[in-house]
């Protein structure tokens, strides 16, 4: 145990370590969901319940339990909702990249449907996360928005993925849609490292990434808690959106278990 950890109360220790235990529970539920098809009726409900309960607790922890930030005061509490949602955006869009690659190699409708779901959920979390950043920027920077490298790069990212989703709407043929959007999804992924490293590569007003060594353990505890809660929501949202996308493609190809084939006519 680190020296600073010994000086904190039992409740702080609980908030610091409970999200790690709950994260393992969430990952175990996800693994069960993926490995045991019969469990899919209840695993997503368990994840939704866990995420909902953690979100309610997150409200208390971030608005009441954790003290105000030293320089930003109570405005710093926005941090506990802004940062995890932007992380979920990056996670969702990274999953989209993996699914796009998988589709091109395996030609699986599951990969294609999961790519659509993860992109939409990623854009949703990104849009809310960036909006929260603007709300935080007004009292701290003095402006709602400025053309800073981090803000420009994340705007480009959201526009590119909005284009990806629009492309999927425009193409009616399921096989052409899956192929073209997979190529676009792979190119769109370039914007992710651009966003991540923008604060290091260019002079940015946005702060660089923090880590547990550079912030107070109380902040780390609440941030961990929030990240686990939003991760549960990310999984549930992506799964539910996947079901809708997969149902649509199954209707379109008429044969539920059919695999797309090169050059096959889909009338």
């Amino acid at each position, binding site marked *: 145990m680190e020296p600073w950890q010994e000086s904190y109360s039992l409740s702080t220790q609980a908030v610091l370590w409970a999200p790690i235990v709950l994260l393992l529970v969430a990952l175990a539920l996800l693994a069960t969901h993926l490995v045991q098809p019969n469990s899919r009726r209840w695993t997503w409900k368990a994840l939704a319940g866990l995420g909902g309960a953690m979100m309610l607790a997150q409200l208390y922890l971030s608005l009441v339990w954790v003290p105000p930030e030293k320089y930003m*005061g109570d405005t710093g509490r926005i941090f506990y909702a802004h940062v995890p949602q932007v992380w979920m955006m990056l996670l969702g869009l990274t999953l989209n990249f993996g699914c796009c690659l998988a589709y091109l190699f395996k030609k699986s409708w599951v990969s294609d449907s999961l790519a659509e779901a993860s992109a939409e959920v990623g854009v949703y979390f990104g849009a809310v996360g960036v909006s929260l950043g603007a709300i935080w920027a007004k009292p701290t920077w003095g402006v709602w928005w400025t053309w800073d490298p981090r803000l420009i790069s994340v705007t480009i990212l959201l526009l590119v993925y909005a284009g990806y989703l629009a492309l999927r709407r425009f193409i009616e043929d399921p096989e052409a849609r899956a192929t073209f959007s997979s190529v676009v999804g792979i190119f769109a992924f370039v914007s992710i490292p651009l966003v991540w490293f923008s604060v290091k590569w260019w002079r940015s007003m946005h702060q660089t990434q923090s880590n547990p060594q550079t912030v107070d353990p109380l902040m780390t505890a609440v941030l961990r808690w929030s990240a686990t809660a939003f991760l549960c929501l990310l999984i549930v949202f992506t799964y539910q959106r996947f079901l809708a996308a997969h149902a649509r493609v199954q209707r379109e190809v008429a044969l539920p278990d059919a695999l797309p084939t090169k050059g096959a006519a889909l009338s």
Partner: protein
Amino acid sequence: MSLLAAEYAGHVTGGWGYVTAAYGLTWLGIIGYATSLFLRKKERP
């Protein structure tokens, strides 16, 4: 500069309105997106 102003120089004071707006938007987003997913559930076979 008054004593209070000197004490808070360089610090952001207040801001609960911004915090309320941020958390309100977060919850509105969660409820709204979850509802849209629930409505799309009806489209499934």
